[in-house]
Each structure stands twice: as structure tokens, then as C-alpha cells.
């Protein structure tokens, strides 16, 4: 915050409050402000243990499946124990090819998602500003959102051939509608009272958008960005399995495909774990951003300030 009128330690909050507020000073001071290190550790533990427990349950189930020999081919070596698979994954992580594949996939993800954000934001901004345009394409965008993006691949492959461009095209197309919709919703839900206040202040046109409508629509826009990421990440995985590009460094999808061809279950699961981990990390970033925005605006019930 750039504007600081008085250092916090010079303020005597109790005196100040009693001098200026009536009964509603009781509304203040309800939120706990203390953030002791012990509390922080406990907070993280509270957030972490259910996840750890879930992982343990999955591994235990897998181990039981392996030991039960239900599939009948433990002896043939097709089904591997979780311990073996995790050791395999650990081993692969020490070699360059897996990291290269991660690099290729993440790079495509970033480019495709950036395209989706650009297109979705531009389309959303235009539609929210131009009513006839909304009447024309508003429902089409909602329709596109429900269409499984994998259905676009034949179209994309015919248009772009077996190239990364085909994958990027489908990613952008899959994610842009969600992002556009998020922005449109946010603009629509700008509180009319704030708009009146803004107009009274003399905010017009660009300034009105910059200082009022865009900040007001941020939460819905971030929700759209998050959903858009989920769609584009799925499109990317589908794309890498469908559009097998030869003659360049393999992507995660190609590693999966190779594992399938070699009937190598451990390799397949190892790659799946990587894909899952990337998805969880990115989702965590979006959740964090969303929580920060809501906490700042007082939209989180009972949260520390």
C-alpha cells in the first residue's frame, strides 16, 4: 500500500475507536490477528494430512491388488507393485529424457494456454461491451464450452497436419470459451450501486473499466481462467496421445504411448503421476490466487484478515 498516513505503532486503536465510533465499534476486533509460528505449522498439517492419508489409501489398495494376483499375471511381470513403480519413477527422474518430455509438454501447455487467455479475454471484452455481438455469439460460446475438445482434433489435424499447431489450436479453442464467459459474467455482475458511485465520482469510459469494472470482475475472471486451464490441460494430453509427432523430442503423451506399445505398466503409471502432479500444482496456484482475492474483499467467512 503506497498510502500510509501514520505508522501503525503510533496509533492507539482503542482510544481512536472510542473517539469516533458508536456502538458499531463492537463490529471491529472480532478477527484474530495473531499468527504464531505454531499455529501456522498446525494450519499446514490440518491441510496436509487428509491428502497424505488419501495417497496412503491408494498405495495400499494398489499393493493389495498386486498381492491378490486377481489379474493372474503378476508372475508374467505385467502388474508391478507400487514400490517397484515408485522406484522406477525415481530412477527415471534422474535421467534427462523424462525431464525433456516434461519440458516439451509444459512448453506446449504454456503457449496453448497463453493463446487461450489472449483469445478468451479479447472475445469476452468485446462481447461484454457490444450487445448485438452478445446476442449473436453469446449462446454459441456457452455451447462451445460443453463440446468435448477432443472432437476438434480431426478438424485440427486436417487443417494443420500432424503438428504442434494442431494441438495448440485445440487447446485454445477448448479453453477460450471458459475464459471469455468468466470475464463476461464478471462484467455483468458488477454491482449497480458501485457503478452509480463510480459515475458520481466522474469515472467514464476507459477509467470506469480500469478502476471499477475490471477489478469488480476479477473473481469471476479468475474462476474462468482456472476452468480454462483445466480444459486446455486435458486438450493437451488428448492431443499428445492423438497427434504423434515424430522426429522431435518426445512429450509426456509420447512417453505414455510408448509405454502402451511396450505393455509397460510401470512406465505408464509413472508418467500419469507426473501429469497428475503438474495438474495439482497449477490448480493449487489458482486456488491460492482465488483465496487471496476473496480474503482481500472480505468474501471469506471467518477467515483471518
Amino acid at each position, binding site marked *: 500500500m503506497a498510502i500510509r498516513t501514520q505508522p501503525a505503532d503510533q496509533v492507539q486503536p482503542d482510544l481512536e475507536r472510542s473517539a*469516533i465510533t*458508536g*456502538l*458499531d465499534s463492537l463490529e471491529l476486533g472480532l478477527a484474530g490477528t495473531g499468527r504464531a509460528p505454531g499455529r501456522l505449522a498446525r494450519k499446514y498439517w490440518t491441510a496436509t494430512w487428509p491428502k497424505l492419508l488419501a495417497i496412503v489409501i491408494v498405495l495400499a489398495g494398489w499393493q493389495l491388488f498386486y498381492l491378490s494376483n486377481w489379474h493372474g499375471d503378476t508372475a508374467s511381470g505385467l502388474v508391478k507393485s507400487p514400490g517397484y513403480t515408485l522406484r522406477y519413477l525415481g530412477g527415471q527422474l534422474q535421467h534427462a529424457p523424462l525431464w525433456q518430455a516434461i519440458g516439451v509438454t509444459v512448453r506446449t501447455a504454456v503457449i496453448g494456454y497463453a493463446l487461450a487467455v489472449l483469445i478468451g479475454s479479447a472475445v469476452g471484452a468485446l462481447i461484454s461491451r457490444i450487445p448485438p455481438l452478445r446476442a449473436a455469439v453469446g449462446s454459441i460460446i456457452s455451447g462451445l464450452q460443453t463440446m468435448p475438445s477432443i472432437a476438434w482434433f480431426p478438424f485440427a489435424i486436417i487443417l494443420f497436419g500432424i503438428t504442434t499447431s494442431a494441438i495448440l489450436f485445440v487447446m485454445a479453442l477448448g479453453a477460450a470459451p471458459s475464459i471469455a464467459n468468466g470475464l463476461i459474467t464478471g462484467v455483468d455482475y458488477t454491482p449497480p*450501486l*458501485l457503478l452509480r458511485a463510480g459515475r*458520481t*465520482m466522474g469515472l467514464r469510459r476507459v477509467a470506469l473499466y480500469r*478502476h471499477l469494472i475490471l477489478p469488480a470482475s476479477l473473481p469471476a475472471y479468475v474462476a474462468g481462467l482456472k476452468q480454462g486451464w483445466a480444459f486446455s490441460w486435458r486438450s493437451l494430453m488428448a492431443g499428445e496421445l492423438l497427434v504423434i509427432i515424430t522426429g522431435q523430442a518426445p512429450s509426456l503423451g509420447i512417453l505414455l504411448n510408448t509405454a502402451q506399445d511396450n505393455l509397460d505398466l510401470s512406465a505408464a503409471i509413472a508418467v500419469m503421476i507426473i501429469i497428475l502432479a503438474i495438474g495439482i500444482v497449477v490448480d493449487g496456484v489458482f486456488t491460492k490466487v482465488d483465496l487471496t482475492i476473496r480474503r482481500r474483499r472480505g468474501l471469506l467467512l471467518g477467515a483471518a484478515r
Partner: protein
Amino acid sequence: MSLTQWRGTPPEHAPGASAFPEGARATTAELRIPATHQVPGDPGTTADRGEAPAAIRLTEVSKVYGRGPRALLAVDRLSLTVATGEFVCLVGASGCGKSTLLSIIAGLDTATAGQVVTGGQRVSLMFQEPALFPWLTAARNVELALRARRVPKAERRQRTTELLETVHLAAFADKRPHELSGGMRQRVALARALAQDADVLLMDEPFGALDAMTRDLLHDELERICAERALSVLFVTHNVREAARLGDRVVVLSSRPGTVIEEYQVPRTGPRRIDSVQVAELASKVTDRLRDEMRHHGH
């Protein structure tokens, strides 16, 4: 003087002409005869007011919502003048077009007929809700109003600090609206309204959602700030006591369609208290008049 808007009636009175005759109010409504009531022991304030230049002058303002048979007449040929430095309280039953009137004066809405003259004065509007931007701190909220007026950055900071000091919230500059109490939020809203450098403050039941004690404190503050800055105020409320506490003049509006039916001049005898005898007397008078009006309208 600038003519912000007129429609329907031609501007017979040239802008800058010394005054619309006080009789303008008499032509307001042929059906009801408006009367200026003088509270006993108050001679001659009307004459003083006649000399002061008007901050707001409404002449035969009407507002119709909708068209055809379903059209709704919200305000009917309402005439009202607020002199510079005057504090006028508007009371009336709900739905008498009080808020509509403020929107029209603030330029957020247009009158269907009649003339609204604000004399080139800056007008700012305060609502019952603080309407602060929840993503900005108290200081940033105030600063944005300065920014909208293109006040240079260096000056903005200083002005923001001063304004927050004016409403006794300097210590809470970095708090966001949800971290403040209801009364403090209205203080920030007041600081923001002042930041618009307004000569005229339009207030739409600004303290309606506050408890009596907080409201009382804010009445004192508002009175002090208005005196310091020589503000003209048009204050809408449905709380008759609040009107009697604050106003130099209390104007009673009829039920829909809204028009002026009664005015009470309040003597300027220094600071008032909401529990004083004078305030109670005036309040009961206004209440009786309002009750009378509602009975006529079959409420």
C-alpha cells in the same frame, strides 16, 4: 450558472438572473397549496435565504417512468431551491421519488420535464450503502475520487491524508472496507464525497443503516464538516427526527407522485441535539403532517 438540463418547459428565466421568485413554489402544484411554515420564534430567515445565491434550483421537475397506460409518474412538477450553504432535509413516505430526485440532480438520471439548475457547482452523491470499492483500502477509495478528477499524484496523497483526518479515520487508511465498521465505512464514503470537491452534497439516507448512537456521532461530524466547508446539502431521509436535527429547512414531500407539500424553516440557534425539545417539537409537527398526507392517500 450552468443549465444542466431542461426539457418540456422553456427556460424563461435566464441563467444568472438573480432569483426565481419565491412564488415559484406556489406554482408548483395547483392541487395542493404549499406553505412555508415558520417555527415559532424564527423571524426573517426566509428573507436572508432569498438573497443567497441558489446552489440547486428545481423548477417544475417531473419524472415519468415507462410509457403509455403503464407509465408511472414518480415526481410531479416539483420545485425546490437550496440556497448556498443551506442544509435542506427532504422527508416523505417511501416511494415519493426522493431518491429519483437526487439521481436527477446528480445527473445519473434525466428529468422528463422541468428545469434543474445547479449553478455550475460540483455535486456529489452519497448513498445509504457506503458503496466503497471492496478491493481498495480506505485511502485508495478516497484517492480514486481525486484521481477521477485528475488531481496530480503528489497532491493526491496529501489530500487523501487530510480528508481521512477530517473524518477521523487517518489510523485506518490501510484497512479495506470489510475491516471497518458500518459507521466507519460511511465516514470513508463521506471523505470520498468530499474528495470530489463538491459544493453540493446530495445524501440519500446515508445513515439509515446505522445504530442510533453511531448515527448521532455522524450527525455531529456532518454538521461540523458542512460548516467548515460551507457545503450546501440536500439530505433525504425517512427519519423525521434526523431531519429536524440536521436541517436548516425541512421539506415534506407528498406520497407518489412526489411534490412539495410543506416546508418548515428551522431557526439557526447554534448546535442542536437530537433529544432536545425543539427538535422533538419540530419532529412531531412534521410527523403529523406526514401522517395526514398518508391518510389522504389511503396508506
